[in-house]
């Protein structure tokens, strides 16, 4: 009985805290995410068009090249300490594009440089991006298998 009261009291407190916590300004955040995310995608499209036209490569090859270039830009902006400032304003707008993926790999790599190149940089690099890779690759394998089975 004592325990039940206790959990009831705890639940009430948690509910009270939830009400008390300030709510982020969703509209403001969405607008920022929309425009910054849009700008990043526009830059990506511009890079894609330029690469495709100037190098005369196929559409798919240009897509791969664009991915590389955007990752490079994301990593560079992280390295000079700008990407976290963009992320603070843009939120999902700069996390979802592939530049955000670059940021999530480069930032721990920089952070743990002091622990050495093996146990620091290399081991910690995928701290944040690791789960994305694991589940991304796993699900792509599963989808691939299903596709293979359906086609045959």
């Amino acid at each position, binding site marked *: 009985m004592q325990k039940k009261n206790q959990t009831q009291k705890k639940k009430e407190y*948690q509910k009270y*805290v939830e009400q008390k*916590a*300030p709510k982020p300004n969703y509209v403001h955040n969405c607008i920022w995410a929309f425009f910054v995310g849009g700008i990043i995608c526009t830059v990506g499209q511009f890079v894609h068009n330029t690469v495709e036209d100037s190098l005369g490569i196929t559409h798919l090859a240009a897509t791969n090249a664009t991915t590389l270039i955007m990752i490079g830009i994301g990593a560079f902006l992280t390295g000079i*300490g700008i990407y976290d400032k963009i992320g*603070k304003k843009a939120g999902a707008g700069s*996390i979802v594009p592939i530049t*955000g993926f670059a940021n999530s790999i480069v930032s721990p790599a920089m952070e743990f440089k002091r622990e050495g190149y093996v146990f620091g940089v290399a081991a910690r690099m995928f701290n944040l991006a690791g789960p994305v890779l694991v589940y991304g690759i796993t699900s792509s394998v599963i989808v691939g298998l299903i596709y293979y089975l359906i086609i045959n």
Partner: protein
Amino acid sequence: MAVKRLGAQTIKFLNPPAIISTGSIVGPKEGQGPLADYFDMIIQDDLFGQNSWELAESKLIREAVTKAIDKAELKIADIEFMFGGDLLNQLMSSCFAARDLQVPFLGLYGACSTMTEGLSMAAMMVDGGFADRVVATTSSHFSSAERQFRFPLELGNQRPLTASWTVTGSGAAILSHSETGPFITYATIGKIVDYGIIDANNMGAAMAPAAADTICTHFDDTGILPSDYDLIITGDLGRYGKEIAVELLAKKGYNAVVNFSDCGIEIFDHKKQDTHAGGSGCGCSAVVFCGYLYQQLKLKNLKKILLVSTGALFSPTSAQQGESIPCIAHAVTIEI
């Protein structure tokens, strides 16, 4: 018989030890805050000329202790014992500072409550006649705390509004017997209170019940009333945690509003410095007490205060395992 014990959780010092000197040192961001004038030293480079954030934090402790010793016109060898603690695994910065200072050392882990934990222990040692000069110190560093508890600095994420900003800084207080104060007269040791809050980005809400519990127990044990204090100041509840604590106190019948504040709110300018809920970390209550409050006591602008450092005793492991956050608060009465 324990003649100095009072009520359920309080110690009354019969030979109240005096705080003869303090040292405080803060990082650049704290140096731009409203309390900047009260700190002994503001560093401009938050690496402090070291190779890592952890070593920088360790140097902060060393400098704060040395500063306090210099101000008391003592030598390092005059200090008989040192109580110290910080937020890092295995108390890295305190241990490394103690290695350099070569003072007999007792490490404490009370998360952000370490300042009052250290002051209580040091006061017991001096009052009990086990030592004449004891230093209590603690530190935190924004960057070393972020990498241990949160995310890499360069990660482009958004901090929730309830999140707090770990203070870069260290404070040290030397306790001894002296004719002139301020004196430590009571210490109320807190119990761990856990209301099941899991969100490590809302530590103010997690810690508020612990703070309220210790403060109420302190009043019950000592018979002192909230209005007897010029200031009741919690460690790092932040803006939202403080509101909750005031409401919890009111529910228990103690009205503390005008003379109630929080070190985490005082140290930063909320409007200009973008620190969300306010400052946190061991260093928060340490530098606010050793810098600002100590001077106000010396100048007699404040005559009697209750310092209540609050600690959230979670670890990255416990958080990942989905456990709630156990919290603690220790209260120390300091009067002139």
